[in-house]
């Protein structure tokens, strides 16, 4: 067997110590009627065969296209230091730090992660991580329900489609509703509708969730929305993209009580969707409603500084059915990646990543305008925006034939919205080159001709 250290002699010694002839005796407790007789799976492979099989599969994916696809998962330069740290077995082969005396490495890195995300968001309490941005938003929505004892949550339809769908699945379990707020013509959340919904005193809202930037890449009037939510006694949660927080106002500044987001842009590879990193930060008075692990700084019996998992009475292994969430395994190694990423970039490096993406996006907008393609929405954007492309799916397909991944046709996420029928969502990051944009412009010239 592939990784067993036992020789036949070792097995013989153990059997002898147990006074049995065969390992079969150890499985006699499985009733015959439910006993299985082996598995119909392929035969074992030696490491070389395994490597060849996996290389073959990986080679059948194509990752060499010029890409303008983002939509919640972004291609960034990952400093080599990130994988150098993540590859250390001391980090990746450790368990959850239940024994703090021999887990100070993991515990301190989680504390540092919490501190860094607190600096990005301006919010003091940061969960050690959630599964991904979608799960983090679902948890935040449930958090607003617990904190306000109200049962109705409002979410802008211009939040990532998968986030809303995930939260709807989570909400199926209780007497709670998640309702979508419409967007205005400029592509941002319609504040008049928000005001109207919040005025419904028979069905008071627990929370209001809005994206910054939103799912169309647009910048929302967050301070106004937060003010409306608070006036109605609801909590306000911002769904953020963490790299953008190097240049955009932090959620605490515009009055967010909670910030959640997808942490993948912070040094985590695209990996066809995961493992990613759910970010969740909150105001300090909400700490006991925060789901997931928290690490705190304390001291040992000698007064030496040390770190430990804390406020554990919120967690499933202590509180069982009264816990704030059922989460146990989280995304610790992905949080470590984000910690190393932020430490490597520093404040200026992260600013440059965000600003370069914005600069490239403006070049992209200019190039597309040159090809006759205009933006759909009038609200400002940072590094992602939607353009009107007649017959968007067909154009997308023809660009694909030319090895260009031209973003996301938004009709796939909003099939019932006529204004988005021919919308293509495109993004740029610091990875986007002038040559990429030129390739797209040239190809559009052929495809649209």
């Amino acid at each position, binding site marked *: 067997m592939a990784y067993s250290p*036992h020789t036949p002699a070792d097995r013989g010694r*153990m059997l002898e110590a147990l006074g049995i002839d065969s390992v079969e005796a150890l*499985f006699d*407790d499985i009733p015959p009627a*439910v006993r*299985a007789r082996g598995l119909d799976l*392929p*035969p*074992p492979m030696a490491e070389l065969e395994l490597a060849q099989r996996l290389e073959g*599969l990986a080679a*059948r*994916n*194509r990752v060499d*296209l010029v890409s303008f*696809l983002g939509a919640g998962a972004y291609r960034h330069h990952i400093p080599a230091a990130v994988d150098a*740290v993540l590859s250390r077995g*001391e980090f990746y*082969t450790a*368990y*959850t*730090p239940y*024994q703090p*005396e021999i887990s*100070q490495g*993991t515990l301190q*890195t989680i504390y540092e992660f919490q501190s860094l995300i607190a*600096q990005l968001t301006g919010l*003091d309490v940061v969960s050690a991580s959630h599964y*991904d941005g979608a*799960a983090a938003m679902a948890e935040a929505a449930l958090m607003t329900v617990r904190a306000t004892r109200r049962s109705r949550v409002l979410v802008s339809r211009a939040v990532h489609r998968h986030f809303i769908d995930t939260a709807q699945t989570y909400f199926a*379990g209780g007497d709670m509703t998640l309702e979508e707020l419409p967007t205005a013509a400029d592509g941002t959340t319609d504040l008049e509708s928000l005001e109207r919904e919040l005025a419904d005193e028979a069905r008071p809202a627990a929370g209001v969730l809005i994206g910054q930037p939103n799912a169309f890449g647009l910048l929302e009037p967050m301070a106004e929305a937060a003010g409306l939510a608070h006036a109605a006694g609801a909590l306000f949660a911002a769904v953020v993209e963490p790299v953008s927080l190097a240049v955009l*106002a932090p959620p605490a500044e515009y009055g967010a009580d909670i910030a959640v987001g997808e942490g993948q842009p912070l040094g985590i590879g*695209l*990996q066809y*969707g995961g493992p990613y990193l759910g970010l969740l930060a909150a105001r300090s008075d909400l700490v006991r409603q925060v789901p997931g692990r*928290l690490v*705190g700084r*304390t*001291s040992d019996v000698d007064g*030496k500084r*040390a770190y430990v998992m*804390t406020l554990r009475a919120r967690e*499933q292994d202590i*509180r069982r*059915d009264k816990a704030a*969430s*059922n989460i*146990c*395994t*989280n995304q*610790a*190694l992905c949080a470590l990646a984000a910690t190393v990423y932020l430490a*490597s*970039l*520093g*404040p*200026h*490096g992260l600013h440059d990543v965000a*600003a370069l993406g914005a600069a490239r996006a403006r070049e992209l907008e200019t190039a597309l305008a040159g090809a006759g393609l205009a933006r759909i929405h009038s609200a400002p954007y940072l590094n992602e925006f939607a353009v009107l492309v007649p017959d968007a799916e067909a154009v997308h397909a023809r660009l694909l034939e030319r090895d260009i991944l031209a973003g*996301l046709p938004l009709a796939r996420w909003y099939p019932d919205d006529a204004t988005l029928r021919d919308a293509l969502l495109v993004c740029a990051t610091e990875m986007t080159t002038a040559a990429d944009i030129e390739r797209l412009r040239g190809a559009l010239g052929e495809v649209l001709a």
Partner: protein
Amino acid sequence: MTAVGPAAPVTSVPDEVQQRGADLGPRLAVGPNLQPTLDEISRPGRASPKVPHPPADALAGVPRQHLRREPLALPELSEPDVIRHFVNLSQLNYSVDGGFYPLGSCTMKFNPKINEWAARLPGFAALHPLAPDELAQGTLELLWDLERWLAEISGMAGASLQPAAGAHGELTGILMIRAYHHARGDTERREVIVPDSSHGTNPATASMAGFRTVTVRSAADGGVDLDALRAALGPQTAAVMLTNPSTLGLFETRIEALLEAVHAAGALAYMDGANMNAVLGRFRPGQAGFDVMHFNTHKTFSTPHGGGGPGAGPVAVNERLLPFLPGPRVAREEDGTFRLERPGERAQSIGRVRSYQGSVGVLVRAYAYLLAHGGSGLAEVSEDAVLAANYLRRRVGEAYELPYEQVCKHEFVASARSLKAQTGVRMLDVAKRLIDKGFHPPTIYFPLIVDEGMLVEPTETEALETLDAFADALLEIADEARRDPETVRSAPHTAPVRRLDEATAARQPDLRWRPMTGAQTPCPD
């Protein structure tokens, strides 16, 4: 709270402690160097540039009210600072790569290195989650195979690879059960039954999915009490969540009667698959009558725990629940190509439980593990895991009570109840003393139904010498508890820190370093 000096790293273990370490154990469990924090080593202007500078007007299109007023505060470090910081921190961790980690219920087996290599192949690692199907054929085939193999291992009809962890799989499974009952117009089932030995995630999941939890006691033999279960079941029961083998490491010998009772009440049976490492190829839950189960790839299939995650918690279901699986799953076309299901393709699906397709990078590792073993190898995994656990149980039983007499599966419970009565030394103290002897302690005080309990899971990848050394250490500690209980009660002595003030940590939470007011140097451009 005790005042902490500014950034004074402890660079060496005091001689006296080092001497004790030499006397008491084979080696220090982990390195001794505590580290200052990133913000303490930060110096204004220090950086190792990673990306080019943007043009000065990069943000000209963004209205001022959306921009930061204060520059972002983050530590400023050079790459050498960063690497040394994290390498030194890593050395404060105990890990499977470094030593024996017999953490019951967690299956801390060796994490094969080829799996890490495979997940980092650019074809897998750089693939965008919304890439068109034609660009993702390699990963789609992998996921297609994996779903089928998990169905074979579980004896189920199909699986969703989307859940990100075991507890996430539980939530997915219980929401599917809810949808199943509702689809039949059966909306009055508001309870989920769990045994008192269950993982905390089971009742927490039931609550999260909107159910009341009913707890049933275990019988004297450690299995679920059949009469208690029958008494708790009724038309209000939506599901029963069982762990088999149980959290005591025991196979539920009454499993046929338990499942019959569950189904007779119109409820469905959920299996927590945390302990599948014991029964691969010997017990297929779906074949035995369970309706749904989750796997923990980070337990059974060797994907690394990462200091707490990421894991993956695929959920397998029988025909009855197949329509309710989350989407998208991978479909195969007649021409042999693969594609993701389209939104709404299965009308009864409970929907998504996360963004995109799942923790694919973790699933690549699990796939590699399954390929390396094949069907025969997986059966051998369970044989060796169960043999090692029973051998270790026999040896540990020389000095600790074994509350359950029967053969165990992949893990076993021992108790320090008598030791505590005789010496005042608790299982917590024994666990901490193991650290001085170079071992990670087992899980303690779980399951909750065993007094002064310790749950030991050696896994199949530990050599006989390691098992013996661990048993010897436990025996020495029992002996030491009688001779010198104070040394055991005050352990660990050789770790970088001693026991922590957890009360202050909870009373005065310090969850982040001091606020910094902004980057202390202007942007270079």
